[in-house]
């Protein structure tokens, strides 16, 4: 079973990387850019047939490692 996880910085956390990317893009002439924030993306494959169990597992991975809940949010999607 395959999932994707996106991890993004919480709203009030500074995103230096996103900000630098934004500046670069604006310098490249993309004046219509309003905002850009950067996060992480994971493609995960599990050896688990039961979709409930699998999802719970992914959730556990996020909590335990993939996201730092103090500064980040995460979102799980089934692929």
């Amino acid at each position, binding site marked *: 079973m395959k999932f994707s996880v996106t991890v993004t910085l919480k709203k*009030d*956390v*500074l*995103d*230096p*990387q996103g900000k*630098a990317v934004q500046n670069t893009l604006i310098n490249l002439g993309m004046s219509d850019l309003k905002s850009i924030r950067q996060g*992480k993306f994971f493609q995960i494959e599990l050896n688990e047939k039961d979709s409930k169990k699998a999802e719970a597992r992914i959730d556990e991975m996020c909590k*335990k*490692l*993939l996201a*730092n809940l*103090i*500064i980040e949010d995460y979102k799980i999607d089934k692929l």
Partner: protein
Amino acid sequence: MKSSVIVFPGSNCDRDIAVALEKLQFKNQMVWHKDTSLPKSDLIVIPGGFSFGDYLRSGAIAGKSLIIDEVIKAANSGCLILGICNGFQILTETGLLKGTLLRNKNLRFINRDVNIKVMNNKTKFSSKYELNQVLKINIAHNEGNYFTSNQHLEELKKDNLIAFKYCDEKGNTNEKSNPNGALENIAGIYNSKKNILGMMPHPERMIDDIISNTDGVNLFSSLLN
């Protein structure tokens, strides 16, 4: 005084800190991350480097290793803990220190000598320094941009938990003297009980006049008191 240095795969300042500790007469032991017990120590150091490649987030994977549980236990029972650079990042990942270290503002690795100011000289780590003393210490990191919640920042200020701030030669803390974009120029912080210090600059690199200077020595000798 007994010290332990925790070694993760990818740690690379472990030897440097061991040299510094031994030079200052600590009885030091290296502890491998897969070990499940810590030797009896008065001081535990988490050294700099790129533990587990700093993949995912710097310090994140090390923060989940077996030995960390022991470090947390020791910390809670009052043992002194020093996290330098990657060690600081690991301490924030474990929650022993609050806040986080984001990418440097210029998105580049920075290695150079910077000035930092001693903000509190009444702790076990800093008693040999003068208050507001300006030190010249080497930094070397990609993610040293300290960030924390407003609430925690207030707490840091109120309880005098800011250890060091980046400054210029004269001790002014301003944007120009801030190498990485850290909140309020913060270069190092204590936990509320002040037995844990996390700092981005590398005091172990500043113990030898032939190589650099000796501005780091007093941090270690403070601990010996």
